[in-house]
């Protein structure tokens, strides 16, 4: 697999480093440069492994264990290749008949160090191919995608072959202690321009009483309410129609009730003050049918400019 972060420049640098390493290795193998330090071959290999392991760790700390081992092995192979190439250069340039002797010379300390250095330079661009550790997040995500919940959800819907995937997730909102409640807001009467429409809306009182707070409604009031209606001026209702609700507080509704029913309710002095300010939503399904046509009259159409479409290019979806 060609990776986009391994470019032609990277490939060239690998080749260039390899060639330079081989040339220098061959050069150093022919000099009389003596290094006092002598070490056995296994020790040298071990030192090489440590150097290469450290290099791989620095280059790619996220490499997996397999990637780390692969990196060290690759570097060692490269080091041997550079040294061997250096030995071959000696054979060809010096006309030495014994390649083995030439290779022994490149195994000296100085040529070896040169080979190590240039193998590091050559392999540095190749670090992008090292396999990486899976991050915790990716592991969790993949586990979720492969989880039994997903498989069972797909099977349960019976739409697995349609590609419909419904994943049920525990609703974290259920665990929250405080969830912002969606409460209807009382409309401000002045928000909508009031039309000069006369009229009244008549609401069955029995229906209205069922909407009042329970602690205020008495049996006597309910009995009286069966045969009476609540009359509300259209002026008071119309500004709220566009809000999708018609709200009055309990205190406001008290003033609109027939006197007998008003007296039958629990009196304000006896009920808590906050109960009086409780908003009561009147039934729209009773109000709206009684509205005169002009109450719901719309202004002249004023769609935005994007709505002006000639319709010649109609979109068609391929339906079954």
């Amino acid at each position: 697999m060609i990776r986009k972060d391994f470019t032609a420049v990277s490939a060239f640098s690998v080749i260039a480093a390899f060639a330079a390493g081989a040339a220098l290795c061959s050069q150093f193998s022919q000099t009389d440069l003596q290094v006092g330090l002598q070490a056995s071959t296994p020790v040298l290999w071990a030192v090489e492994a440590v150097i290469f392991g450290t290099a791989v760790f620095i280059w790619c700390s996220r490499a997996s264990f397999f990637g780390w081992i692969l990196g060290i092995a690759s570097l060692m192979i490269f080091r041997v290749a550079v040294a061997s190439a250096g030995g071959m250069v000696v054979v060809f340039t010096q006309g030495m008949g014994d390649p083995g002797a030439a290779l022994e010379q490149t195994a000296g300390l100085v040529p070896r160090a040169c080979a190590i250095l240039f193998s590091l330079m050559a392999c540095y661009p190749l670090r992008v191919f090292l396999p990486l550790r899976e991050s915790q997040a990716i592991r969790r995500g993949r586990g979720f995608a492969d989880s039994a919940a997903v498989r069972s959800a797909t099977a349960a819907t019976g739409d697995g072959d349609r590609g419909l995937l419904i994943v049920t997730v525990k609703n974290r909102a259920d665990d929250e202690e405080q969830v912002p409640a969606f409460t209807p807001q009382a409309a401000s009467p002045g928000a909508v321009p009031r039309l000069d429409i006369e009229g009244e809306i008549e609401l069955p009182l029995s229906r209205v009483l069922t909407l009042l707070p329970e602690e205020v409604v008495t049996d006597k009031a309910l009995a009286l309410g069966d045969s009476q209606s609540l009359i509300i001026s259209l002026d008071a209702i119309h500004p709220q129609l566009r809000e999708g609700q018609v709200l009055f507080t309990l205190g406001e509704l008290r003033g609109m009730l027939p006197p007998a029913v008003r007296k039958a309710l629990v009196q304000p002095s006896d009920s808590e003050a906050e109960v009086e300010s409780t908003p009561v939503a009147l039934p729209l399904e009773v109000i709206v049918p009684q509205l005169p046509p002009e109450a719901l009259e719309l202004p002249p159409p004023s769609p935005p400019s994007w709505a002006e479409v000639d319709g010649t290019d109609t979109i068609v979806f391929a339906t079954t």
Partner: protein
Amino acid sequence: MASINYALKEISCKVVYYGPGMCGKTTNLQYIHQHTVPDKRGNMVSLATPGERTLFFDFLPLEASQVHGFRTKFQLYTVPGQVMYNSTRKLVLRAVDGIIFVCDSQWDKMRENVESFRNLAENLASYGYSLETTPYVVQYNKRDLDNTAPVDYLQYTINPRQVPQFEAVAIQGDGVFDTLNCICTLVLAQMPQKQKAGTI
């Protein structure tokens, strides 16, 4: 945001179904998914709660007929309608090209419809968009139920400007494709202007 790939001759647009909770947004998408030819749509992804309420969004990619030699692709999204998921709704609205506002026609949902519509305007404003510049249509869903408000009252509350509106029964598929076709037409019709403005 809409994108045009001249090399592949493809136009890609994003359409969002918006509305209060349980109004039928996901139902719209499910119906579209079940009734479009499989090779013209992708998999529908739904992230929902055990009660089948949308938690994050629903997503469905669709391909439509060619327009002026360009393949048209639409990415359909729905938002979670519950009030508490406003931040998610805002995220889904990012880079939107067209909106279908789904209303629940029931009487006791009227206030939620109004609140949701205002919420839509607020969330668009947070990105510098507005309903003046973003095409939208209104779908009055659940017209088959008994306790529904008349369309003229729904128009009065939600659509006084009288942008295109459709009555629908999404669970049966009535009005679903009509609504979708209309918004897609409006979105594509706006492409030349957006190109001139340099927004695509």
